[in-house]
């Protein structure tokens, strides 16, 4: 366990010392600032725009971090052979994977926290008060964080056997498809031939369903998130991430390091 923690902290340290991280955070905060300006133009829906745009920004910049850093997690160590020194020590292969994931998860957590703080500052500036519509926003951000973890796990998986470019493409592709998952389901429902419908449905369930976690518009209107949704999404993320990590561990365990 100490080894996993050591690897996680080292990964975190690497992420923090990577300038990419700061650029992305700055951009995100700028975007949130711009959202305030947009709000000035359209009277009456300032808050609406701010919440929609702000949460979208947190999603996309978080995703950018997850992908940019995630695709290099294993690949860089393989390519640069830093793994030789690492795995010759009493470190299990699966501990390496868990440590890497943990490190990036920690990075994302801190980053999301920063952006959330910035966001709520902007929100207070626009609204001049806090009300009952605000706590659901935190739930929406929690859901975004779950998405980021899922994207990280996927990037890590691809990093175990693919070049950075391909890993980024695959992860981004899965994110896009997963965001349109609801349309996949509609497509399945609309299909006539039962075997075709079956195939489509199988694809729908297999693809990581990122759209589950998107409650941005709803919380922008002040709706609260039902508890069942909260737990279901947490369960979905937990199970899916576990499966992806197990796959990563298996692939990495059996790799010969060249």
């Amino acid at each position: 366990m100490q080894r996993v923690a050591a690897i996680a902290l080292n990964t975190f340290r690497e992420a923090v010392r990577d300038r990419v991280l700061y650029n992305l955070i700055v951009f995100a905060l700028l975007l949130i600032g711009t959202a305030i300006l947009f709000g000035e133009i359209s009277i009456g829906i300032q808050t609406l725009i701010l919440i929609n745009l702000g949460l979208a920004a947190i999603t996309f910049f978080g995703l950018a971090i997850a992908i940019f850093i995630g695709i290099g997690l294993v690949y860089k160590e393989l390519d640069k052979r830093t793994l030789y020194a690492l795995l010759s020590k009493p470190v299990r292969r699966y501990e390496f994977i868990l440590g890497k994931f943990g490190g990036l998860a920690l990075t994302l957590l801190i980053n999301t926290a920063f952006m959330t703080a910035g966001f709520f500052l902007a929100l207070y500036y626009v609204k001049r008060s806090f009300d009952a519509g605000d706590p659901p926003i935190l739930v929406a951000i929690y859901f975004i964080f779950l998405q980021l973890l899922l994207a990280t796990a996927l990037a890590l998986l691809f990093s175990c056997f693919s070049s950075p470019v391909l890993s980024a493409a695959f992860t981004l592709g899965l994110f896009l498809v997963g965001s349109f998952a609801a349309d996949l389901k509609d497509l399945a429902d609309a299909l006539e031939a039962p075997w075709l419908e079956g195939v489509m449905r199988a694809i729908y369930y297999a693809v990581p369903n990122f759209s589950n976690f998107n409650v941005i518009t709803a919380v922008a209107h002040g709706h609260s998130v039902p508890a069942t949704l909260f737990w279901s999404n947490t369960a979905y993320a937990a199970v899916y991430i576990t499966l992806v990590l197990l796959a990563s561990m298996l692939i990495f365990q059996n790799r010969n390091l060249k």
Partner: protein
Amino acid sequence: MIPVRRWLPFAILVALLGGAAVVHIQRNLDAEMTVFHVEAQELYLTSGDWVKRLSLGYHGLLACLYWTRAVQHFGRQRLAHGEYRLLYPLLDITTTLDPELILAYRFGAVFLTEEPPSGPGRPELAIKLLEKGLQQNPAYWRFWYDIGFVYYRGFKDYQKASEAFYQGSEYPGAAPWMRIMAAKVAAEGGTRQTARALWQELYNSTDDPTIRASAELHLLGLRIDDEIEFLQAKVDHYIHVTRKVPSRWEDLFAAGLLPGRPLDPMGRPYRLKYDGTVLLDPQSRIFTSKLGWRE
């Protein structure tokens, strides 16, 4: 290295269990989301222009996506007896993204006009959409037909309807019946024959299954109206002659007024009320109203 034969059975087991768990949770989520999922979620942006700008040139593809959503929305609202609030915005975005998607305009024309619960009953939105279609596709004279139809059905303004048909008939390549229709509507706008002609024409003019189904349904309704009128005339005649109200169709059959027991297009016999009124069988009524036709 863990040899294949050792990890493969575990991997399969984990994949199956994990897959089952994922499917189970997802189904729960789907159920929860339909309840919670505020439909406005689908519209991040209500302006078609912005969507077009952001589509990075793939607006044709996005148009298809939005078209699909419009149809899905319509279907869901039908089942839930909803308000169809997003139908116009979705079709508006679709046609901004792809102005040549004729079907979107026509679909909007037909279903925006439909009275609740089959549709939102907003003929003015239908006109708006059609005028946009004409602007983007000036040679497509059929839109005048659709406009005329909306005036006819939605506003019951036979004058304007006739004018629209006439406008369309002036186009090169317009079908000759456009002018005939213009005259017919002006002269006898309220008749069932006109309605039948219009619906039949609509049916013939498109391949889209949803529009065709709607046209068929309306034609069915008109046929039922015709048959009831016909039967009612027979019953009234019977009463006039025998000074008695017939209790069953057999009475009319015995009197030679009918060749047999009359069945409605769904195959059920028409009902004869105690006071001689001809009615549609309740089962058939339920059937037709479920499909969107209300009497």
